[in-house]
């Protein structure tokens, strides 16, 4: 894939290394001359010096028709401008940016940015999910938090112990996709009986998470 990385310091550095390893073709633009030289010498690639929120810089860096653009400048408004130029004038299919103000996540999505990442926003979401139930060991979110994969270890006092899967009052949009019992993995059917110390992998939507977990525990 042809990927444009606009701005960013350590995050750009890290992304360049990881994307080069996967053999993507990169166009790197940075506004800081010294950082350009650093990136260029460390990764042995050409780095374009200039402000990526200027149209002529994007034009000169020949970003047109790239597959993905990632805007990492510390200025949210500049990142939006970069992403909008990319979409509207340079025919770039997918644009991603980081924002400092977590409130901009929803705004930028409404304004046409495909993926908006805010560290604060993600931490807040994570804490909210993690504190739903203390017994929840891990929650992994997939597809922009649309799907949650929850890992629950069944305690001996849980109501589900000895019950069949079909006897649990599970909400819609939730399923026990896998049970890990000792060293074995099994995909449960309706008649599978849950035992204490089973590790359940429960796939849920965010709204059904609490109900599903409660059905296992209470």
């Amino acid at each position, binding site marked *: 894939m042809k990927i444009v990385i606009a701005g960013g310091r350590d995050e750009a550095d890290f992304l360049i290394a990881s994307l080069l390893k996967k053999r993507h073709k990169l166009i790197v633009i940075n506004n800081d001359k010294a950082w350009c030289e650093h990136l260029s010498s460390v990764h042995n690639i050409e780095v374009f010096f200039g402000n990526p929120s200027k*149209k002529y810089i994007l034009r000169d860096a020949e970003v047109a028709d790239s597959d993905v653009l990632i805007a990492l400048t510390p200025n949210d*408004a500049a990142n939006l*401008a970069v992403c*909008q130029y990319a979409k*509207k*004038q340079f025919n770039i299919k997918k644009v991603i940016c980081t924002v400092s103000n977590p*409130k901009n996540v929803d*705004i930028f999505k*409404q*304004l046409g940015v495909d993926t908006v990442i805010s560290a604060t926003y993600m931490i807040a979401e994570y804490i909210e999910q993690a504190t739903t139930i203390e017994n929840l060991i891990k929650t992994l979110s997939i597809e922009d938090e649309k799907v949650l994969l929850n890992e629950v270890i069944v305690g001996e006092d849980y109501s589900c112990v000895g019950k069949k899967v079909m006897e649990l009052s599970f909400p819609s949009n939730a399923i026990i996709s896998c049970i890990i019992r000792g060293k074995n993995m099994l995909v449960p059917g309706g008649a599978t009986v849950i035992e204490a110390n089973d590790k359940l992998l429960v796939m849920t939507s965010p709204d059904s998470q609490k109900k599903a977990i409660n059905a296992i525990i209470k």
Partner: protein
Amino acid sequence: MLVAKKVILVGCGRLGAGLAERLSDEGCHVIIVDTDKTAFRRLPDNYSGFEITGDGTDMEILKSAEIEEVDKLIAVTGDDNTNSLIAQIARKIFSVKDVCIRVHDESKKELVSDMGISVVCPKLLAMDEFSRLISSGDKIAEE
């Protein structure tokens, strides 16, 4: 009784302060927003509108400026990208009817022109004026 038109102005630099003075003289109810409190010193003594210290790209600040009730917003901060972001929030999220911004880089116009946002570019205005002056100079010389 005529209800005064409400206008939100974001950016209290030379242009913002000048506009605030003119619009309030014309009878508008002006609410001016700037991140820097000291910027409001540019406003004349007789300015009677409101001042809000805060980031004009922040929805909460815009709400405190009663953006849900105004139908005019002007963004004239020193940064083109900031003006463009504020204008898009005003148009797309709060459906403000008339939104105008100042940009120094005329190519930024292309980013927002399809959203019903009016754009003023001082460079283009100055170019028009200069070429008018130059060509009218020719006419005088010919006479």
